């Protein structure tokens, strides 16, 4: 077997397992993450400067994680690139002329698996240096196979006042508490949907905040029906039950109410959040009139699920698949995407939590490196990956976004945070007969044209447009290209100076 060069983007549970899998199959691995420490969201580590003596106090599965980390980072064939952002993927020419490909490695041609990998995976453009700094080093890698494991971020639906300081995504509260011991407030409400509400509540309690309420928007019936019978058994298969039971016990101990069928429908305050209005919801998330309650808070943490970070898979040309929980990267039984030599693992293929991300990663790394597809260990990985997928499906069914959520919007509610485009302007653009197509709406309202490039509001604006105009979200407007959500030529910001500087050879320390 030849030594393949594998690039793994993302060093969370999925990427780390992918690196380990690829190394086990005999590949050389470059593991890249924009963070300065590995671990991703789930194993977010404390800064080294904290010199923590008991970092495991905040972590689940810490020993196994540390062991894996040592095996990967200590491996002679692994290069760990921290503070390195993949800012673009450049696809090879669409139709490579195989005969004129003079500098092909004859060794590689004798490898039957190679055929599948024509054309080659995209070139990987990397910037190395502190986040958004100037003068980072620019480097390009040309791997034999690429594993994308870039994870997800919270999806948050707009509501009046969600742009006030003091309203955070649940993930932000988690990242600050776990990653640098900053607690976002003293009197917090955690709202939205999904099991992620629980670890966030646990982190805030651990860090000494008062958690007034945890609000699951879905009704007990929706949640129970989604999980069907024996939800805990299913969770056990996905390796999650102990963790969830622990969080539940913690909420009980701190007497934090966990309410279902209720959510935050408004945040109010003068320059920062001072109170929230919560309301009871019907199964479709319409507000039950008269059920509103006001609560004084200094922090609100919200999550309505996770959005996968799709810009790199889309840049690589990977096909997506629509699911109940939104669009994800489509992968086959080996975690291979629709593009030759490009594999995907973790939350970009579906949201099922860290154990599932690990199984997917291990499989993706092993197969990307050309590992034997039919060993007992691989079969075991596939089984646990399949359990993860089943878990993801139940999760999506138990914690859907109710169709009537726009009922809590007001005309002046900001929908696109960057451009401060409000609901009224979206409605106006949609009412204009020429304006129903998403692209026209975008130009008319500027929704989605700000610095975040629609990462936050994209799915929401598409959904609202489709509903308001009665047209599918991607209807083509006269003379304008069909909008391509997730298409962001620059996956991460790069400065002009950095772009102009000559790229450097990759294998410099």
């Amino acid at each position, binding site marked *: 077997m030849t030594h393949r060069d594998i690039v793994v983007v993302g060093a969370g549970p999925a990427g780390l397992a992918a690196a380990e899998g690829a190394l086990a199959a005999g590949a050389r691995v470059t593991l890249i993450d924009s963070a300065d420490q590995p671990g991703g969201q789930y194993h977010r580590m404390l800064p080294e400067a904290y010199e923590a*003596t008991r970092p495991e106090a905040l972590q689940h599965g810490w020993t196994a994680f540390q062991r894996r980390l040592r095996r990967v980072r200590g491996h002679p064939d692994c290069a760990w690139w921290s503070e390195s952002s993949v800012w673009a993927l450049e696809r090879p020419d669409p139709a490579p002329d195989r005969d004129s490909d003079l500098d092909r490695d004859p060794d590689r041609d004798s490898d039957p698996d190679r055929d599948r990998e024509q054309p080659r995976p995209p070139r990987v453009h990397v910037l190395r240096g502190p986040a958004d700094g100037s003068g980072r080093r620019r480097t390009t890698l040309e791997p034999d196979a690429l594993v994308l494991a870039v994870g997800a971020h919270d999806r948050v639906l707009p509501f009046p006042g969600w742009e006030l*300081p003091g309203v955070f995504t649940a993930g932000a509260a988690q990242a600050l508490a776990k990653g640098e*011991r900053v*607690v976002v407030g003293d009197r917090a409400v955690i709202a939205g949907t999904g099991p992620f509400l629980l670890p966030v509540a646990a982190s805030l309690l651990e860090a000494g905040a008062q958690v007034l309420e945890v609000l699951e928007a879905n009704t007990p019936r929706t949640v129970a029906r989604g999980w069907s019978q024996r939800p805990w058994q299913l969770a056990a298969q996905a390796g999650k039950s102990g963790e969830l039971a622990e969080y539940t016990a913690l909420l009980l101990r701190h007497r934090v109410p966990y309410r279902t069928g209720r959510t935050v429908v408004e945040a109010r305050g003068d320059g920062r959040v001072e109170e929230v209005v919560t309301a009871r919801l019907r199964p479709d998330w319409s507000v039950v009139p008269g059920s509103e309650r006001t609560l004084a808070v200094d922090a609100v943490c919200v999550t309505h699920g996770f959005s996968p970070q799709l810009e790199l898979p889309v840049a690589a040309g990977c096909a997506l698949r629509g699911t109940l929980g939104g669009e994800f990267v489509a992968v086959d039984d080996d975690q291979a995407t629709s593009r030759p030599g490009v594999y995907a693992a973790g939350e970009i293929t579906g949201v099922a939590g860290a154990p599932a991300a690990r199984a997917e990663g291990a499989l993706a790394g092993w197969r990307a490196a050309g590992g034997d597809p039919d060993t007992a260990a691989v079969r075991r990985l596939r089984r646990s990956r399949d359990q993860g997928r089943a878990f993801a499906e139940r999760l999506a069914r138990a914690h859907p976004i109710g169709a009537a959520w726009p009922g809590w919007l007001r005309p002046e509610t900001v929908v696109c*945070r960057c451009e401060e485009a409000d609901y009224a302007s979206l409605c106006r653009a949609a009412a204009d007969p020429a304006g129903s197509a998403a692209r026209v709406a975008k130009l008319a309202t500027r929704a989605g044209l700000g610095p*975040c490039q629609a990462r936050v509001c994209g799915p929401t604006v598409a959904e609202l447009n489709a509903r308001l105009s009665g047209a599918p979200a991607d209807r083509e407007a006269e003379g304008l290209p069909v909008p391509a959500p997730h298409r962001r030529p620059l996956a991460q910001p790069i400065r002009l100076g950095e772009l102009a500087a000559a790229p450097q050879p990759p294998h410099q320390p």
Partner: protein
Amino acid sequence: MSPRRVRAESDAVGRQDRPLRITVDGEPVDGVEGQTLAGVLLAADRLAWRRGRSGAPRGVFCGIGVCFDCLVTVGEDRDVRACRRRARDGDEVTTQSRAPGGLVDRNEPTPPPTEK
């Protein structure tokens, strides 16, 4: 009280605090080594430091580099995501505004102020 750092003495993770000082628009703000700029600002009870197009205040929203709400200028570098950049002792942070009269989009029409 609002956002703050868990006290080192009582922190379950058993950590050390090594103080650092940055300036924000010239004013000194204290933090500890290892924190992100966003963490330093929040723990100093600065919940907002950027202004949107309407002048509305913004701080941290996503915490992981996705929303760009937290942008600051660090030294000469504009548009640094404060939630992703580790603070260094002596960092000179300047806040940004997209409102008219702010650093960006100076020639936009004046929107109604949303904040007193």
